[in-house]
């Protein structure tokens, strides 16, 4: 072979490589979000918020609800929302595409199957619930126009909005609601299926009416009617189409919401476009929403700063960047948004050293919770006050305050351990404890190091086990192979939805439940009462009593309350209408 031939061969090989690279490059996709010609808004036809229900009550301040403003299960829609969304300064204009960052591909866009955060983020724009929750957890009409509650709190009658259509043009009726409940939500939704044993029936007497009959009153019933817990899914798409979990609509959803699904580029973007026939006339304002998948937290912050992304919700932001982003003049920060969530350390009461309440109290006394907040959460959290944190002001009791009950005091903690029979050997050590946590969660990675340091002072040799999530679930919740573990629970709007599972007796091994081995019939009884009591006062009383017991028994030590901080580009207006900032994006607009 001549030298010339060799050169040719080399060039051919190189160009083949190049061709492969070009051929395999992702096919360019047309922009889905190009505004339809009709959408070009003239200044004069900027929609006025007249379609919103007539307001009778002034918008309440969005700060934490006072005890009296606690979620009232029996609230009737007399206090329909004033459109708090409409900014005072300017009238909303149409147009623009907002970019929202999420961390990974959602597992599904059928919110009836998952409580996954990114699924909720995307699908909440495509679907609706019967109601949405305003900044004070008050239910406001969405697919339901109004509702009434019977005096005993057992019968909820919803009047549905008329003229609502699915994205494929089919009309929305009460049959969709009944189907969603009977066939999907009560069977498959991880949270809402817990309603099944409480529910007698879901009936649809006519096309615009749905009646729920409960066996007993249930305080957070309305809280669970949002798009996140009870999205209404299209019966005509799912019914008779075989297995719901395998329906193609789970990745190409058809909803009633303000935006319709356009395209999903795995690992890159999910694109939604305005649904022109949305039932709130003139909304949504945006032409479309693009979800950009950015796996690294630091990159999500950077994308906000460079303007590549317009909105990032607290859940996806590294705490380390919060203070820098708050100082950024191009961004609006919103602290304390979202449902309360607590981060805690479960203690395995089957472990000998942790089997007594006194020993667990000693552990609590040795952990520097302020340092945990400062260094693992960068100060963006509140050191815990009690077994349910302090996110629900109405259930707090002066009798429980961890800062007073368990202030940092190593000497006292050591003495308590000695008394509890967890004595130190000649080397001053009291044994080994396994601390298990999710290696993908930076706040736990940092907190674990601090706790290891703290417990070493107490004489425990802490073996840190940073595990992958699936292994963690196996080891902690199914195999009980842990002594201490760091976890977090989100309340989902009511302690009885999200927090009870941390303390109530759990007969079966299930993930994200109380697997500490702690069981107390009195606590079970009080918490059951707190879930079903008809009014807030009675609920608070039950919670107060339960907290006193739990703060002493300490099967889990709550470390801190998360304090979410969302960030939006100043280009966006009308964000944060509801308590969950993923909700109500039909109200978001971009001033020109």
């Amino acid at each position: 072979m001549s030298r010339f031939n060799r050169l040719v061969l080399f060039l051919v090989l190189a160009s083949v490589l190049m061709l492969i690279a070009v051929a395999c490059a992702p096919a360019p996709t047309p922009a889905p979000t190009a505004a339809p010609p009709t959408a070009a808004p003239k200044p004069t036809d900027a929609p006025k918020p007249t379609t919103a229900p007539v307001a009778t009550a002034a918008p309440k301040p969005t700060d934490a609800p006072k005890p009296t403003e606690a979620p009232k299960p029996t609230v009737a829609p007399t206090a329909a929302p004033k459109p708090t969304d409409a900014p005072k300064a300017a009238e909303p204009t149409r147009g623009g595409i907002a970019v929202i960052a999420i961390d990974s591909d959602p597992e599904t866009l059928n919110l009836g199957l998952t409580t996954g955060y990114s699924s909720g983020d995307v699908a909440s724009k495509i679907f609706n619930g019967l109601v949405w929750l305003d900044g004070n957890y008050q239910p406001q009409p969405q697919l339901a126009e109004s509702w009434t509650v019977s005096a005993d709190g057992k019968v909820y009658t919803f009047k549905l909005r008329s003229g609502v259509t699915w994205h494929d043009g089919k009309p929305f009726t009460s049959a969709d609601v009944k189907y969603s409940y009977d066939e999907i939500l009560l069977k498959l939704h991880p949270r809402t299926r817990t309603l099944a044993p409480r529910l007698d029936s879901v009936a649809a007497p006519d096309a615009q009416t749905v009646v729920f009959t409960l066996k007993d009153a249930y305080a957070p019933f309305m809280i669970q009617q949002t798009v996140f817990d009870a999205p209404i899914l299209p019966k005509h798409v799912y019914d008779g189409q075989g297995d719901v979990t395998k329906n193609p609509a789970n990745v190409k959803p058809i909803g009633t919401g303000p935006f319709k699904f356009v395209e999903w580029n795995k690992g890159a973007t999910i694109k939604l476009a305005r649904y022109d026939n949305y039932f709130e006339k003139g909304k949504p304002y945006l032409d479309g929403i693009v979800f950009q998948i950015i796996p690294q937290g630091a990159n999500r912050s950077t994308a906000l700063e460079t303007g590549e992304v317009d909105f990032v919700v607290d859940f996806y932001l590294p705490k380390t960047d919060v203070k820098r982003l708050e100082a950024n003049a191009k961004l609006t920060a919103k602290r304390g948004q979202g449902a309360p969530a607590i981060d805690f350390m479960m203690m395995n009461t089957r472990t000998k050293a942790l089997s007594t309440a006194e020993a667990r109290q000693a552990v609590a006394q040795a952990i520097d919770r302020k340092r945990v907040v400062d260094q693992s959460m960068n100060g963006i959290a509140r050191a815990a006050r009690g077994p349910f944190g302090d996110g629900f002001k109405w259930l707090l009791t002066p009798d429980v305050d961890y800062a007073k009950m368990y202030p940092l005091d190593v000497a006292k903690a050591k003495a308590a351990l000695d008394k509890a029979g967890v004595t130190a050997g000649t080397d001053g050590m009291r044994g080994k404890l396994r601390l298990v946590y999710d290696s993908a969660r930076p706040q736990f990675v940092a907190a674990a190091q601090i706790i290891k340091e703290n417990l070493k002072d107490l004489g425990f040799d802490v073996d840190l086990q940073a595990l992958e999530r699936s292994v963690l679930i196996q080891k902690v919740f199914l195999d009980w192979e842990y002594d201490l573990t760091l976890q977090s629970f989100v309340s989902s709007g009511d302690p009885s939805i999200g927090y009870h599972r941390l303390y109530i007796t759990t007969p079966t091994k299930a993930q994200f439940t109380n697997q500490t081995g702690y069981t107390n019939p009195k606590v079970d009884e009080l918490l059951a009462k707190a879930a079903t009591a008809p009014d807030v006062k009675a609920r608070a009383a039950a919670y107060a009593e339960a907290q006193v017991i739990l703060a002493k028994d300490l099967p889990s030590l709550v470390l801190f309350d998360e304090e979410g901080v969302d960030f939006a580009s100043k280009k966006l207006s009308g964000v944060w209408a509801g308590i969950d900032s993923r909700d109500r994006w039909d109200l978001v607009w971009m001033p020109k």
Partner: protein
Amino acid sequence: MWFYILKRVAQALPLLLAVVVVNFVLIQLAPGDPVTLLVGDFPAPEEYVKQVRAEYGLDRPVAERLVLYLGQLARGNLGYSFANRMSVAELIGKRIGPTLQLMFTALVIAIVIGVTLGVVAARGRGKLADWIAQIGALVGYSVPDFWLGQVLIILFAVTLALLPSQGMRSARSVATGLDAFLETLPYLILPATALSVRFIALFSRITRSAMLEVLNADFVLAARAKGLSEGRVLLAHVLRNASLPIVTVIGYNLGLLIAGSALIETVFSWPGVGRLMFDSITKRDYPVMTGILLFVSLTVVIANLLTDLAYAALDPRVRYTR
């Protein structure tokens, strides 16, 4: 030659089978259940967990699953991703483009810079330029590429704000075709640079030693004696001979390049196969994981075969034996 290729392919089949089997054994031994990740953050109903498990065949014994999988594979079906709810082949197909783009750009950068450095070093053998190029190559070979990626982000995306720090193109982009490609270029610079450094080092070392070998060879001396310009001698004789080891290095280091791109794709949020592989491991998305491992090993096998063929084609002294 065709017999040789057939023989090599036949040899590769048991290897690929071994990859699948070892993979299944690892999955069987591994703690953790993928179903726990698919049902959300709240305790899932027992029936639902069972249903999900049955849906993906996870309730069957591993041997049965292995046989089923191999049967599927024989029909060209890579299976179905449970975390992504789509076919594995389709998923890999969507993510392979960005990875190839990144790898190819990195290779081009590495060849251009690496070969230039190697030429400079060889021509100035023993002088300062050579010494610097050699040290540079060693440093490039030693610096962790993901760390270099971080430093590049700090320098060029954060401090100087010259280039985007992550992603492939703006999420707002509506460009198609060539425009889309051009839009990707600025996003490509930092990750491709970080990925290329190790290969710049490799190529410059190899070019240098290959050139030193031929610089004083008879045919080069002859070419010089014929009065050819130094540039032409370099291009026509020296570099052409150095191309052989470079092709070899690319071929045999493809696995390294793929592994490197997993790290780089993570640092720069590049939506490629490397990132998909890492995600599939953490999400216990076994079909995707198996599919990618299979894909990677197949690529390595093919690259090795092509490299051997190219080697034989470029160097007539090599015969198809072994």
